[in-house]
């Protein structure tokens, strides 16, 4: 009844809603859908960056070349590894931080602001600092590392450490977002449910498992999905920290696309790779939705 009423009084005209959403819609069509379609088109051509119009259709040649190249699978695995590590790390860290800071503590407001800080810092600044921290000769990371007896590490130079360094910087930047979202969810846990558990004799961990966690899980799921998508997309931090190196250790799909297009000028191929990356994002989203649906059935 309420919705009908709303429609009658506020949304009378059939035209008005279209008016309101038209600007945004047209804009997105122009600047998102059209490039997407053109990208799709380019992926089947052999266009070059300098003169995209002159590309000729070459069918699925680009895709074949990509899929035959072991480099693709390296990118794919790096993308997945990076995304997995960052999601697990940031969600875990963010959730723990949220739980820790949910109770009254001396200096709580200050701590909260400090913990939110990394999120506010622009990507480029983050990169600059971490490059310096990771610096082999003079970076503070190695200062600590030698001090603790581990010796100096090639954080950005050693292929086996590249992924770690990049992941650490990413988790650092991203965990506050999760912390804030989880904190909001924690604060909406109904107090009476907690009280009921206390009266029933549950200790703190039990209260967490029986009352808090079930409440958190939907939120965690959404936030994980968001983080996964963002990780697949992430360009700045990795590109500027390692450029995909060392030796391809952090060369994820997105960086590869960039390199193919702007360093090799192979527009067509870059587009094809980009489409594959998009497929990855879509697949991941679908997986999340299916898991969600199955959970609901339970």
């Amino acid at each position, binding site marked *: 009844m309420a919705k009908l009423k709303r429609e009658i009084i506020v949304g009378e005209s059939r035209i008005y809603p279209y008016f309101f959403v038209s600007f945004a819609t047209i804009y997105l069509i122009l600047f998102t859908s059209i490039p997407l379609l053109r990208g799709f088109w380019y992926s089947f051509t052999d266009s070059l960056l300098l003169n995209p119009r002159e590309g000729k259709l070459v069918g699925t040649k680009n895709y074949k070349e990509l899929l035959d190249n072991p480099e693709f699978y390296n990118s794919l695995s790096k993308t997945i590894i990076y995304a997995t590590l960052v999601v697990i790390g940031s969600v875990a860290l963010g959730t723990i931080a949220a739980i820790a800071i949910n109770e009254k503590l001396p200096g709580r407001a200050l701590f909260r602001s400090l913990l939110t800080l990394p999120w506010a810092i622009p990507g480029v600044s983050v990169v600059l600092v971490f490059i310096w921290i990771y610096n082999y000769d003079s970076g503070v990371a190695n200062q600590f590392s030698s001090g603790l007896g581990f010796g100096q590490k090639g954080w950005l130079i050693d292929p086996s450490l590249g992924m770690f360094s990049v992941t650490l910087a990413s988790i650092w930047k991203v965990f506050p977002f999760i912390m804030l979202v989880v904190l909001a969810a924690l604060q909406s846990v*109904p107090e*009476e*449910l907690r*009280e*009921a*558990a*206390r*009266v*029933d*004799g*549950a*200790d703190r*961990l*039990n209260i967490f498992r*029986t*009352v808090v966690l*079930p409440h958190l899980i939907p939120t965690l799921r959404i936030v994980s999905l968001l983080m996964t998508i963002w990780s697949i997309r992430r360009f700045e931090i990795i590109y500027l920290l390692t450029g995909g190196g060392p030796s391809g250790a952090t060369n994820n799909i997105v960086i590869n696309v960039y390199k193919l297009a702007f360093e090799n000028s192979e527009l067509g191929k870059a587009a094809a790779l980009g489409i594959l990356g998009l497929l990855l994002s879509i697949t991941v989203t679908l997986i999340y939705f299916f898991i969600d649906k199955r959970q609901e059935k339970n």
Partner: protein
Amino acid sequence: MPKIVFDKVNKYFGDVHVIKDFTGEIDDKEFLVLLGPSGCGKSTMLRMIAGLIDVTEGSIYFDDELMNDIEPKKRNVAFVFQSYALYPHLTVKANIAYPLLMDQFRWWWHLPFIGNLKRRIYLRRPEVLKRIEEIAETMELTQLLNRRPKTLSGGQRQRVALARALVRNPSLYLLDEPLSNLDAKLRAHMRVEISNLYSRVQKTFIYVTHDQIEAMTMGTKIVLMDKGEIQQQGTPQEIYNNPANVFVASFIGSPPMNLLNVEINQSRITFSNGFSLENSNGAMPDTDKDKVILGIRPEKLIKLRDSEVGIPVTVKIVERLGSESLVAFELKNAMKDSSASESSEKRLFFIKLGGDESINIGDELKIGFNFANVRWFDVQKGNRI
């Protein structure tokens, strides 16, 4: 058990003084109602009894044992919440079994698989299953055992909440406005259920509500609170017949007690409309003030014949309830001069008459009463005199 004793209990939230010098006793097997308007502190009091909130000052004793620092689970109480507080992702069966499970819980059950295993083993024990089945049958929940709270109606959820409270066989039952979220008909039904439960288990019940009808019908003793202070404690009859102050008088009874401002001179009472009466059959208030409040319940007022001497009133509202009629009236000016009309009250007072009385709006009546039924109150402080 337990007999509960409150000794000058005070509660502060920061600087806000929410419970003031709460002192009293609750006998074993009493059905005590904590009654009062919203914000009077009754829910806070209940939670202090349960151990969910700390006591700032004062002491609470269960059977002479100091309870202030003891956790809820050790107090052997059951708590029924206004919102039922059922665990949303557990089945009805698991909800009811939860307190039993927690009684068995050891700290090493938290380890990953051990806990799960132990839980399953425990829930398969015949005596546990039997107990759950018994309780489910008592609360008529046998059909619903495998459902989730989401799928249940309000009344069903309430019964699950009660079942969960029952299952531990507590010595004290605490209920926090359990019927507020139910519709009127269901509420009446559940009131009976709870009363039945009380007579069945023969334990102490403490029941919080703002509904005075619930209080009067269910309680063996009522503690009426306002703004953190006890206004009066006693049986429903005591509180009804002998209210300790104006607040109690106007809170209890529907419609509330009529409170009229009067001037007294020896045994002569003058109402605000100028009309005077001689007090012939009751006590006068024990005070040297000349202005007091005269309180008398609507059902104790008598409609006199026009020819008799009585307070002149004008009927303003008539509510016919079938079995009785509720008539609201204003005092009518007895004198014609203007000074009296300025000071006359425009307030409504009530009288209960029979269902088939022919009364209409605008009618002028004469009202009388027996002074033995009058209760006197102080004008400034509101207390009984």
